[in-house]
C-alpha cells in the first residue's frame, strides 16, 4: 500500500505542467498561493527531495539539521528578497543549477559529511530558493504569508522524503536513492549549459 501511494504520488508529480514564474493566484488566500507555487516549481521541490534523501541516508541527526537549516534559510531568503534587495535572475539561476549539481553529487556519491555540513547545505538551498521565489516583491503581509506557505510545503516534502530513506538498509534501495541524486546532478549540468547558451532559465 505504501509503495502504491508513493507510485501514485510520483505519477502525479511527473505530470507535465506549464511553468508559472511568478506567484500564482489560487483564490484561496496567500498561504495556499505559496503552497501551489511550490508545487508547480520543480526547481523548488526537486532539490529538496534530493537533499532529504541524502540527509536521510546520513541519519536522523543530519536530517533534523538539514530540515532546520532549510526552513530558516528559506524564510531568511524570502525576507531578504522582500525587505532588502532582489537578487538578479542570472545569479539565482546559476546558484540553483549549482545546488542541483552539488546536492545531486553528494547523494550520488553518498558522500560522508557531518550533520552540521548537511544543515549548512539545507540552509544554502533554502536561502537561494527563498531569494529566487520572492524576488521582485515588496514586503507586505500577503507576500509574507505566501512565503510561509512555500516554507511549510518545503517542510512537509522534506520530512516525507527523508522518512523514506532514513530506515533504508537494503543495498538496491540505497542505490535507487543514489541514482536519483545522479539524475539531479545531471539536471544541474544541463541547466548550467542552458544558462550559458540561452541565459537565466529558472527564477
Amino acid at each position, binding site marked *: *500500500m505504501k509503495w*502504491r501511494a508513493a507510485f*501514485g504520488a510520483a*505519477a*502525479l508529480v*511527473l*505530470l*507535465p*505542467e*506549464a*511553468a508559472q514564474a511568478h506567484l500564482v493566484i489560487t483564490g484561496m488566500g496567500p498561504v495556499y498561493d505559496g503552497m501551489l507555487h511550490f508545487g508547480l516549481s*520543480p*526547481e523548488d521541490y*526537486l532539490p529538496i527531495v534530493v537533499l532529504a534523501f541524502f540527509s536521510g541516508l546520513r541519519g536522523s541527526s543530519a536530517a533534523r539539521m538539514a530540515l532546520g537549516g532549510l526552513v530558516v534559510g528559506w524564510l531568511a531568503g524570502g525576507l531578504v528578497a522582500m525587505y532588502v534587495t532582489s537578487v538578479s535572475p542570472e545569479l539565482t539561476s546559476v546558484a540553483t543549477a549549482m545546488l542541483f549539481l552539488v546536492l545531486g*553529487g553528494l547523494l*550520488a556519491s553518498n558522500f560522508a559529511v557531518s550533520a552540521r555540513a548537511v544543515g549548512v547545505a539545507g540552509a544554502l538551498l533554502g536561502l537561494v530558493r527563498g531569494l529566487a521565489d520572492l524576488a521582485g516583491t515588496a514586503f507586505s503581509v500577503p507576500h509574507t504569508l505566501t512565503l510561509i506557505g512555500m516554507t511549510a510545503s518545503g517542510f512537509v516534502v522534506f520530512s516525507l522524503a527523508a522518512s523514506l530513506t532514513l530506515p533504508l538498509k537494503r*543495498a*538496491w534501495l540505497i*542505490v535507487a536513492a*543514489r*541514482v536519483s*541524486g*545522479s*539524475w539531479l*546532478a*545531471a*539536471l*544541474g*549540468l*544541463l*541547466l*548550467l*549549459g*542552458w544558462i*550559458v*547558451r*540561452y541565459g537565466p*532559465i*529558472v527564477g
Partner: protein
Amino acid sequence: MRARQFLFLMIAASALIPETAAAHIVKGEAIGFLSGVEHPISGLDHVIAMVAVGMWGAQLGRPAIWLLPVTFPLVMAFGGFLGLIGVPLPGSEIAIALSGVCLGAVVLLESQPPLWVAAALVGVFGLFHGYAHGAELPPGQNALLYSAGFVLATGLLHATGIAIGVVHRWPWGRVALRGAGAAVLCGGAFFLWSAFA
C-alpha cells in the same frame, strides 16, 4: 483499498488536475517534460547503445550494475553541457555509431574487463551521446522540465537494459542476452556505415 479501486482513484485524480491547453506545440521545441522524454528515445542509435550499457552492466554483475546507472547520467550530462556551451567535439556521430558496435560486441562476447576499463569505455561513449543531445537541444519555454524529461528518459533506457539483463541468471537467458548483443552490434554497424556514407 483494493488495487483496482486504487487505480481508478488515481486515474480520476489525474483527470481532475487542471492543465493548460497547448494547441500548437512547435515540433522540436523544448516546451516541457514530455518533449524532453521524447528526445533521447527518438534516435535508435542512442537507444540501442544505452540499452546495451544496461545489459552489459547486468552481465558484469556487482558492483558494475550499480555503478553504471549512477555514473552514466552524469557523464552524459557533462557531454550535454559541452554541447550546449558550444565546445567543438568532432566525429561525434561516428563515435555514437561506434558505441553501438563496441557495446554490442562486449555483450555478445560477455566481456569481463576490470571495472575501471568498463567504466571508462561507457563513460567515453556516454560523453559523445550527451554531446550530440546537448548540441541539438532547442531553445524553448521550459528548460528545467525539458531537461528533467531528458535525464529521466535516459535513465529509464538504461534501466530497461538492466531489466533485460536480469535474464542473465538463467542459462537460456545468457544465450538470449548474447543474441541481443549481436543485434546491437548489427545496429551499430548499420549506423556506422550510414555515418560514413
